[in-house]
């Protein structure tokens, strides 16, 4: 049998890329770590789950519908999103989670020799997709835990196609204000695509936090990402979307694989948008309470925190975060070690129900004792 010559067949930028290894399923982890319960504080999931209407959609999904292809371009959902923001449905593209729409954008705008710009300590997928697509990634260090607008502008050159800004930033919770974002867009002057990832938009309560959707008419080079995975609690169904100028989105649509979003996700997402039960308010209250509690507990333990918007905060530990992950797993607590975000010795903790927060604090005290 002749084996394929992978050195020849596979581009070097793919060969050299280390695939991300996701966590094993919870039962496997519990078996490996010998814990009989697991508080999931690693993925910023909403402990309240989806809004009641979406839960009902999921419960009542008729099994025969499993045999039917979904709308290939999320027809009704795009109309609903467009109605919410007063834009054309064709300005919206829905993907299998926001991760997929990141791929759409990079495929649409970048070719070998181009570059993208993002930050060093932010959501890793922008960088990953660029790297395994053979696109240079210019990594700009955060300044005071925030995206450094001046340094990002200075990094732009003729080959720069896309700039990714995570607002609020995951994992620091910092954000650009209206003024900062608009000044940035003015200075870019439409020469590059600016992506503002608003995955945690619905969690932000600060008054000067900008709504990217409202800027779409003024800045045709702006693309906004949103997701149903965080506030709306349907991460397991994988659905997110982007919105932008009609002509820009028309280009991105060419790189978009239709039928990638399943029918249940589309219907549940519709129900999320139509929620009138106060799901967002309830979630914000929970996050607020947990944030206050955890900040105080960490201060009492002498552990610095980085806390801002979003349903998470970062704790600085006196030692290795990846070791802390393992120790906490043995206690039934799963957090996110931050070395992968270039914050060695830091962990990110999802702000969840008080029961989970108290269990986390107790376990952390135990492993640091």
């Amino acid at each position, binding site marked *: 049998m002749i*084996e394929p010559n992978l050195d020849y067949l596979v581009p070097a930028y793919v060969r*050299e*890329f*280390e695939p991300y*290894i996701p*966590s*094993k399923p919870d039962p*496997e*982890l519990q*078996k*490996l*770590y010998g814990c009989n319960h697991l508080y999931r504080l690693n993925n910023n999931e909403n402990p309240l789950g989806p809004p009641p209407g979406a839960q009902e959609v999921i419960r009542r999904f008729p099994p025969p519908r499993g045999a039917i292809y979904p709308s290939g371009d999320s027809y009704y959902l795009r109309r609903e999103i467009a109605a919410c923001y007063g834009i054309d449905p064709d300005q919206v593209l829905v993907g299998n989670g926001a991760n997929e729409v990141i791929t759409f954008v990079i495929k649409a705008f970048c070719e070998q020799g181009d570059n993208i710009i993002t930050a*060093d300590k932010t959501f*890793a997928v922008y*960088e*990953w997709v660029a*790297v395994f697509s053979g696109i240079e990634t210019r990594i700009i260090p955060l300044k005071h835990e925030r995206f450094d607008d001046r340094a990002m502008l200075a990094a732009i050159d003729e080959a720069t196609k896309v700039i990714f800004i995570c607002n609020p930033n995951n994992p620091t919770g910092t954000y650009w204000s209206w003024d900062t974002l608009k000044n940035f867009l003015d200075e870019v002057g439409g020469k590059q695509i600016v992506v503002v990832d608003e995955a945690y938009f619905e969690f932000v309560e600060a008054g000067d936090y900008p709504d990217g959707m409202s800027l779409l008419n003024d800045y045709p080079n702006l693309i906004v990402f949103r997701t149903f995975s965080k506030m709306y609690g349907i991460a397991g169904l994988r659905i997110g979307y982007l919105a932008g100028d009609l002509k820009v989105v028309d280009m991105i649509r060419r790189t978009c694989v239709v039928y990638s979003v399943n029918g249940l996700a589309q219907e549940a997402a519709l129900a999320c948008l139509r929620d009138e039960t106060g799901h967002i308010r309830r979630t914000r209250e929970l996050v607020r309470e947990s944030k206050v509690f955890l900040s105080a507990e960490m201060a009492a333990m002498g552990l610095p925190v980085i806390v801002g918007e979003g349903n998470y905060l970062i704790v600085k530990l*006196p*030692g*290795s975060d*990846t*070791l802390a*992950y*393992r*120790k906490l*797993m*043995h206690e039934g607590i799963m957090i*996110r*070690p931050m*070395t*992968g975000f*270039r914050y*060695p*010795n830091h962990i990110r903790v999802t702000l969840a129900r008080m029961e989970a927060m108290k269990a986390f604090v107790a376990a952390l005290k135990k492993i640091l004792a």
Partner: protein
Amino acid sequence: MSNDQDRIVTLQLNAQMSFLPIAVQCVETVAKAFGLGREESLKLGLATEEIFSYLSGKVCRGQILDIRCVNCISYVRVEFRFPVSVLDMGALNIAAAVSCENEDDMAQMGLVLASRSVNRLYISEERKNHICLKIEKDKHYPPVQEITVAPVAVKGALTVGTPDADGIKLYVTRVARGSSHMPRPHYFQYPGQVVDMVAAGDCQVLTATDSRGECAGGVLFHFLKASIIEVFGPHVFDPAREEEIAGMLLDACIAGTVRTKAIGLLNLTGMPSFLQSQFEHLGLMKNYSHDGEAVDRSAFYRLLHEDPGCRVFTDLVLKDYLQREYKRLFLAREIREVCDQGETHTGASIFSADLYRERSVAILNPLWPGADLDANVNNHLRFLKEEGIINIFFTLDLGVSWQASLMTVLMNNHFQPALIIPFAGQADLLIFQYDRTEP
């Protein structure tokens, strides 16, 4: 070097003695063209002669042999790729000569003689019955200058970055001329070699500089295995700001490696005590010198990501040890015991031997199982002792079930488990060290 084509010369020929001069001439000529001096080129040619003769006579006579010369800038590597039948594989053990009835038969000494002419020799099985044998010869570099290096008094804010060639030489010189007792690789005596190693992508250097451009410290790191990065340092040149400088260098090292193929960082040569809490202490290895002195070396490690857990295989003899160690390290492992249940073992086992003569180190790795494990371990020990190698290690991949059958053999031959390196193989690597106090 940007273009691989400029740094590789390949030759394909039949493994038959009539082609020996072609192979030798090719390697010598290419070595010179790649920048080796006359003496080094001749030695590489000599090693090629021994290997080619040996392969033509004992291993793959008449088969296609690929010879690839690679300009690695600071050294030249010659790779021999060939097929081998199961029957002939035993001859690939570097210690095969020791087991011959007639030890004067120089034809059996091919690999041994070759190993004496080069800096490093490796054997690996790239795919079933296809072997790659590599030899490497370093270029000659002038040693670090005997100059007094003035102490550094760092001023102002520090920045960490990738230095230019002069910056690398300054960093290496400061480390070599400094008073640190931290052990370091031999190339820290040759600043020009480190510059070339960085240019070749064999390692990376980061330095911290102050507001006036003074070098306040540095760190050197490289891939030791496919997913393990070995770190030397951080080295700090201004003790007054030691914690700040070392912390910045380590953070930058992690930032530069965390989104690569690396799963973990490994330090075998010591680090400032205040950084040790960021690492996990894997265990101790002894470093013997020719005067008989033994120095304990701590191995520090940190995973760069979540531990996904894995399955490891063990013989009963080390089950307790592994359970203890994994508990101490908080690593999630499913430990599966394997044991001999009377099945038949046939053929000759093969161990690859990585020889680092400048450090008097040999690392043995099992490539292929066989019926002669105990005899093969004995042969290797005899051979390595005769060659004057005093630091002998044996690595077992705990993710490969048959390798667990070597555990008892190694223990019976006075090897002791020293430490586990997570994810350094298909699963974790268990490193054994030969106990020199044993006869």
